[in-house]
C-alpha cells in the first residue's frame, strides 16, 4: 500500500479523532476528525499531553495515566465518558487506546481513536428520562393497580394504586405469586394459571371477577393482562392493570334492586286488583238482588275466597319486610316432617286442583322429627308445591318424597313442568324474581316464595337447592333439614277444632271505619253476643261507662284518640267490672303487638280477623292472651 495514501486516509477522516501519543502521552500526530471533534488545529495540540482533553474530575482521579497504564499492560483500553473541547464544552466520547510496540516489544507509543457519542447519549438520556417519567406516572396512579408479573406469575413491580387497591406494600408482594389476589374457589379451579395461559396464547386477557385484598376483603375487579416481549420477540412477562369496580357493581346491584322493586310494585298492584275486582262485583250483585238467598250465598263465598287471597298477599308483604330486616324468627319445637308434608299438601291443594295435576306423596308416617317451626316449615313446603303447580302445564304430576339421610330429613318436590334454565338456577331464589311468564297464575304470587322458602330452611340450619335437567324437563327442589338427635315422634298433635258455640257476652266495637264496625257488629250479633258500636275514642269511653262491656274490640288507627290512648283511659276507668281489650288492627308487626300490650290490650288480632279465632277469644274465660 502507498504510505502516503494511508497517511491521507488518517488525516482526512472526519468522524473519528485518530492520533498518536508518545509513551508519555504527548500528542505526536493529529487529523481532521480530531480538529472537528475537539476544536484544536494540529499546530495547537501536537506536543501537548493528551490529558488536556479530560475533565477536572477525571484529572483529579488520575484517569489519563490509568488509561495509559491499562493500555500498556493489556495492549488496549476502551472507555466511554465526558471529554473537553478546546472551548471548554463537553462531549460524550467513546475512546479506544491501543499500545504500539516494535518487533522486540518495545513500547513506541499509543494510537487513540475518539468518537463523539453525544447524540446517542442524548437519545439514551431522553429515553431514560421518558422511562423515568413513565415510571413516576405509573407509580403515582392511584385508581388502577398497575404491576408486572414474570412469565411464571411472580410479581416484579408494584405501583401506588396496587398498594391502595390490594393493600400490599411493594416489599410485601414483590416476588410472590399473583394468585394471592384470587379467591379460594378460583384458585381451586386453577383460574390464575388459566389467565396466564390465555394471555400467553393471545398476548392479552381481559376479564372481570372477584379478587381478594390483603385483609381478605373481596372486591369486583376488571383485569387486563398484556404480554411484554423483548426485542427478539421473547415473552418477558405480563403487565397487569386491575380496576376496582366494587362501587360500579354496588350501583348496578342498587339499580337491579330498584328495578326489582318497581316490578314488584307493578305486580303487587296486579295481584291486589285480581281479588278486589270480584269483591266489588259481588257487592254490586248483592245490592241489585238483596232478596235472592242463592245469589247472596254465592257472592258471600266469592267475597270469602277473594278476601282470603288479599289476606295472603298482606301476609306475604309482612314476610318480605321480615326478610329484608332480617327479623324472620322461628319457633323451636319438635316437628314431625310427615305432618308438615300433609299440611303443606293440603295448603297447596287448591292450586294443584285448579291445574289438574296428579300428586304423589311418599313419606314415612313417623320418625322424621326436626326441631323447628311447624308453621314456617309448612309454609316452606307449600311454597314449593304452589310453585310446582304454577310452573307445570295443566295435567302434570307433582311428587313429594321424604326420607332420612345422614341424620337429616330430606324432602323433595319434583314436577313435570317447564324446568329451570341453568342461567337462572340461582336467581330464582332472589326476591321478586319470577319465571318469564307463568303458564297460569294460580293464586297469583309476589315472587318471594322461593326466597322465603330458602330463608326458612336456613333458619332451621338446613338448605334448599333446585335441580333441573333444563327447559321443559321438570324441576326438583330439595329441602335438607337436620333431624332431632332422638328423632322421635312429637307429642300427639292437637287437631284444629271448629270454634265452639259462643258464650253470650257484652261486646263494644270501636272502629272509625263505619263499614268495618257494622259488619263486625252484625257478625257478633249473629253469634249471640250483645253489642254496642262507637266510631271514635271519646264515644267509646262514654259507652263503656254505661254499657260495662266484657270485651272491647278496639281499632288502633283512629283520628282523635287513637286505640292506644283509648285503651289506657279504659284501663284507668275503674267501673268495677273486669273486661278484656282486644286490638283489631291492620298493624301486625311485632313492635305493634308490644306497643298494644304496653297500652293495656289483652289480645292483638290482625285484620281481617278469622271467625274461629274471634270466637275463641270471645269465649276464652282463662284470660289467656293471643299477643
Amino acid at each position: 500500500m502507498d504510505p502516503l495514501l494511508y497517511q491521507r486516509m488518517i488525516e482526512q477522516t472526519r468522524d473519528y479523532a485518530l492520533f498518536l501519543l508518545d509513551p508519555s502521552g504527548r500528542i505526536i500526530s493529529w487529523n481532521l476528525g480530531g480538529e472537528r471533534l475537539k476544536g484544536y488545529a494540529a499546530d495547537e495540540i501536537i506536543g501537548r499531553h493528551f490529558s488536556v482533553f479530560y475533565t477536572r474530575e477525571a484529572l483529579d482521579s488520575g484517569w489519563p495515566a490509568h488509561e495509559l497504564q491499562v493500555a500498556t499492560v493489556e495492549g488496549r483500553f476502551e472507555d466511554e465518558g465526558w471529554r473537553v473541547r478546546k472551548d471548554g464544552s463537553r462531549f460524550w466520547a467513546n475512546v479506544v487506546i491501543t499500545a504500539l510496540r516494535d518487533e522486540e516489544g518495545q513500547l513506541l507509543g499509543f494510537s487513540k481513536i475518539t468518537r463523539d457519542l453525544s447524540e446517542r447519549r442524548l437519545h439514551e438520556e431522553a429515553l431514560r428520562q421518558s422511562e423515568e417519567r413513565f415510571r413516576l406516572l405509573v407509580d403515582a396512579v392511584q385508581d388502577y393497580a398497575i404491576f408486572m408479573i414474570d412469565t411464571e406469575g411472580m410479581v416484579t413491580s408494584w405501583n401506588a394504586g396496587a398498594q391502595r387497591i390490594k393493600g400490599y406494600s411493594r416489599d410485601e408482594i414483590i416476588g410472590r405469586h399473583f394468585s394471592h389476589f384470587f379467591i379460594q374457589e378460583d384458585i381451586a379451579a386453577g383460574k390464575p394459571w388459566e389467565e396466564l395461559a390465555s394471555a400467553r396464547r393471545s398476548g392479552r386477557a381481559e376479564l372481570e371477577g372477584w379478587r381478594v385484598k390483603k385483609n381478605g376483603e373481596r372486591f369486583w375487579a376488571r383485569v387486563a393482562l398484556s404480554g411484554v416481549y423483548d426485542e427478539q420477540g421473547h415473552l418477558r412477562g405480563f403487565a397487569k392493570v386491575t380496576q376496582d369496580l366494587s362501587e360500579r357493581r354496588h350501583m348496578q346491584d342498587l339499580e337491579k334492586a330498584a328495578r326489582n322493586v318497581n316490578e314488584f310494585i307493578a305486580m303487587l298492584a296486579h295481584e291486589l286488583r285480581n281479588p278486589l275486582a270480584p269483591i266489588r262485583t259481588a257487592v254490586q250483585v248483592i245490592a241489585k238482588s238483596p232478596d235472592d238467598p242463592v245469589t247472596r250465598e254465592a257472592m258471600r263465598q266469592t267475597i270469602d275466597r277473594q278476601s282470603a287471597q288479599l289476606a295472603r298477599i298482606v301476609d306475604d308483604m309482612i314476610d318480605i319486610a321480615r326478610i329484608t330486616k332480617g327479623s324472620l324468627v322461628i319457633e323451636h319445637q319438635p316437628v314431625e316432617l310427615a305432618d308438615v308434608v300433609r299440611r303443606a299438601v293440603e295448603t297447596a291443594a287448591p292450586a294443584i286442583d285448579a291445574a289438574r295435576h296428579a300428586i304423589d306423596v311418599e313419606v314415612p308416617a313417623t320418625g322424621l322429627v326436626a326441631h323447628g317451626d311447624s308453621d314456617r316449615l309448612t309454609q316452606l313446603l307449600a311454597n314449593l308445591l304452589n310453585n310446582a303447580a304454577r310452573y307445570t302445564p295443566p295435567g302434570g304430576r307433582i311428587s313429594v318424597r321424604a326420607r332420612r339421610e345422614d341424620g337429616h330429613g330430606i324432602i323433595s318436590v319434583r314436577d313435570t313442568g317447564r324446568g329451570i334454565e341453568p342461567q337462572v338456577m340461582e336467581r330464582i331464589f332472589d326476591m321478586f324474581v319470577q319465571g318469564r311468564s307463568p303458564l297460569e297464575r294460580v293464586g297469583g304470587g309476589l315472587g318471594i316464595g322461593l326466597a322465603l322458602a330458602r330463608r326458612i330452611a336456613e333458619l332451621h340450619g338446613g338448605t334448599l337447592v333446585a335441580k333441573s335437567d333444563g327447559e321443559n324437563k321438570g324441576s326438583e327442589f330439595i329441602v335438607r333439614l337436620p333431624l332431632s338427635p332422638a328423632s322421635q315422634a312429637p307429642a300427639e298433635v292437637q287437631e284444629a277444632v271448629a270454634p265452639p258455640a259462643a258464650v253470650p257476652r257484652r261486646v263494644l266495637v270501636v272502629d272509625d271505619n263505619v263499614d268495618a264496625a257494622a259488619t263486625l257488629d252484625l257478625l257478633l250479633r249473629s253469634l249471640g253476643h250483645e253489642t254496642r258500636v262507637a266510631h271514635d275514642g271519646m264515644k267509646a269511653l262514654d259507652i263503656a261507662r254505661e254499657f260495662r262491656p266484657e270485651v272491647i274490640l278496639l281499632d288502633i288507627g283512629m283520628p282523635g284518640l287513637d286505640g292506644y290512648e283509648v285503651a289506657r283511659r279504659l284501663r284507668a276507668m275503674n267501673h268495677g267490672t273486669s273486661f278484656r281489650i282486644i286490638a283489631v288492627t291492620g298493624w301486625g308487626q311485632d313492635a305493634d303487638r308490644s306497643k298494644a300490650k304496653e297500652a293495656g290490650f289483652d289480645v292483638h288480632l290482625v285484620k281481617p280477623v278469622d271467625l274461629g279465632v274471634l270466637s275463641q277469644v270471645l269465649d276464652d274465660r282463662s284470660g289467656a292472651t293471643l299477643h
Partner: protein
Amino acid sequence: MAPKEPLHIPLRWEFVPVQQPRTGIISWRWRAHTQGGRLDKESEQLFDTLTECMEDAKQHGYGMP
C-alpha cells in the same frame, strides 16, 4: 275397595284427577300403594275437589302414623 291386608309404611299415596268422558268434568280419586309399589287400595268414589279426596284418604290412613 276394602283393604286387603294391613298397610306397610312408608306408602305412596297418589291423588289423581279423572276427567269424565261425557261431561269433561274433573273428579278426583286416591290410590295407596305398598312400599313394593303394589296397589293396595283405592277410593270407592270420585270427589269434586282434591281437598275432599284427601279428607276421604285420611279416613283410610293417609297421613296417619
